[in-house]
């Protein structure tokens, strides 16, 4: 947990997260991420042997106690939803071309 983040790491993570960083932003993020990761390395001091990770505090496994009944219910009106899209055909979301040929 003491790994030093490199410029390549920042660039790789930015790519995974679909973020594009300017060289200035990359430098700033490199500095900030290293400072934050140095700080969180404090967790190395905690002995967690045999401790189950806590993923959900509510401890509800299934609210109804059984599978939810499968009732079809009306959903949002398609025209209303599609009207929020930056670009749509009315039935589909339109995006720039996906396949280069």
């Amino acid at each position, binding site marked *: *947990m003491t*790994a030093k*983040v490199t410029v390549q*790491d*920042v660039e*790789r*993570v*930015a790519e*995974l*997260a*679909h*973020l*594009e*960083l300017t060289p200035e*932003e990359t430098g*700033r*993020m490199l500095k*900030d*991420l290293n*400072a*934050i*990761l140095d*700080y*969180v*390395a*404090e*967790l190395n*001091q*905690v002995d*967690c042997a045999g*401790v*189950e*990770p*806590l*993923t*959900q*505090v*509510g401890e*509800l496994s299934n*609210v109804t106690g059984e599978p939810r009944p499968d009732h079809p219910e009306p959903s*949002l*009106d398609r025209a*209303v*939803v599609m009207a*929020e*899209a*930056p*670009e749509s055909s009315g039935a589909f*979301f339109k*995006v*720039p*071309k*996906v396949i*280069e040929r």
Partner: protein
Amino acid sequence: MASETKHAGNFVEKPRTIVALREEIAAGRAKAADLAASYYQRIEQINPQLNVYLSLSKERALEQAQRVDAMAAKGDPLPALAGIPVGIKDVLVMKGAPATAGSKILQGYHPPYDATTVARLEAAGAVLLGKINCDEFAMGSSNENSAYGPVRNPVDPERVPGGSSGGSAAAVAANMAVATLGSDTGGSIRQPASFCGVVGVLPTYGRVSRYGLIAFGSSLDRVGPFAANVRDAATLLHVIAGHDAKDATSSPAPVEDYAAESDKPAAGLRLGVPAEYFAEGLDPEVRAAIEKGIDALKAAGCEVKPISLPHTKYAVPTYYLIATAEASANLARFDGVRYGYRSPQSATLAEMYRHSRDEGFGAEVKRRILLGTYALSAGYYDAYYRKAQQVRRILAEEFLRAFAEVDAILTPTSPVPAFKLGEKTDDPLAMYLADIYTVTASLAGICGVTVPCGATAAGLPVGMQVLARPLGESTAFRVARAVEAAGIR
């Protein structure tokens, strides 16, 4: 509208109580429509200085006020919040009203549905005034991360109102709403409430539906109320709490009448004071104010004893790993495809994603997405994310053990009073440390109330945090009422 002035040129004004306003409307001595109009007038006057509201929902508010007035005229029984003007943090959606989450990436988005909490407030007669400014995607401790400019603290406009629900706290402090809703992931209700001198509630995880809340860290996110006094906050919680089939983590436990419960005396309650919350880094004036509050609770007949929560110091690193990991996943949905902002110049789909997100997100949001993505990436998952979840269990169990011995835990809400704008913006770590006393309850899933508890010599409010076991809101309200009743200056 009575006013209290300590700071020259401040904007502090105490709203009247829900009980008083509702009774006047029911008796026909006041009209909900006039009340709404007077609030819009005050908003128009001081919003340019404080930057609290991002958008107003006048038409919807007026229609609702007229419905309430018609009911009152007929002599119908009025619901709990009949005619009460309420503001909504702009991370909760209201059908047809702009929803920005303080971000440019949601520019132009008009959600086609209401959050459950919004719908419940309106069903209880509340008049929803508009959407309130906050840190972008609720990420921040000062409200300086909003793409629409910072909110200013009504007590001293040179200072931050806290974050991320800074606008919701400032709105109540400046009487720009009688009450508001906010969200709290690591302290975002409690810390701004303490900075602005109002009451803020962190409900137990699962107590209030998250449906229609724009997600930040889903295992941590809560929706809760702000009000000028404890009883009003309890009244709002009663309205918004309860099971919701649209939120899979919503608790089926019955909802208590929190306002009535808060009327019960605190005498006889066992209260714990954890040494770890009074250590290095606590401002001496904040400490002195909290000690006065503790003395007042002793005088009110509570049994106060020291306790220890030794893993407290690991809460901030644990929180920032879990919250950012969850945020990186939640914020993947903002891609310029279905709603909000799309960058106009992109030749390919991948470019469109990158450009839209790059132009749409602010620096702090990008920082947290990167940190979260890093913590979840191959080779680091066990060392960071899994480790943090293990420490989270240790922290949660430590609280539950403490609650076997005490009914509530008392701490300062924040180690420092409201700081100046710009004071911490260059150092993300210093900003994260402002959450040191609040992230623990977020991780443990327990509930709490922050209540005004005196002020510094300069007149900056101090808040006491009262924490209680899961679904122990009534106990937290009782203790907070006793602190409030002591009238600590």
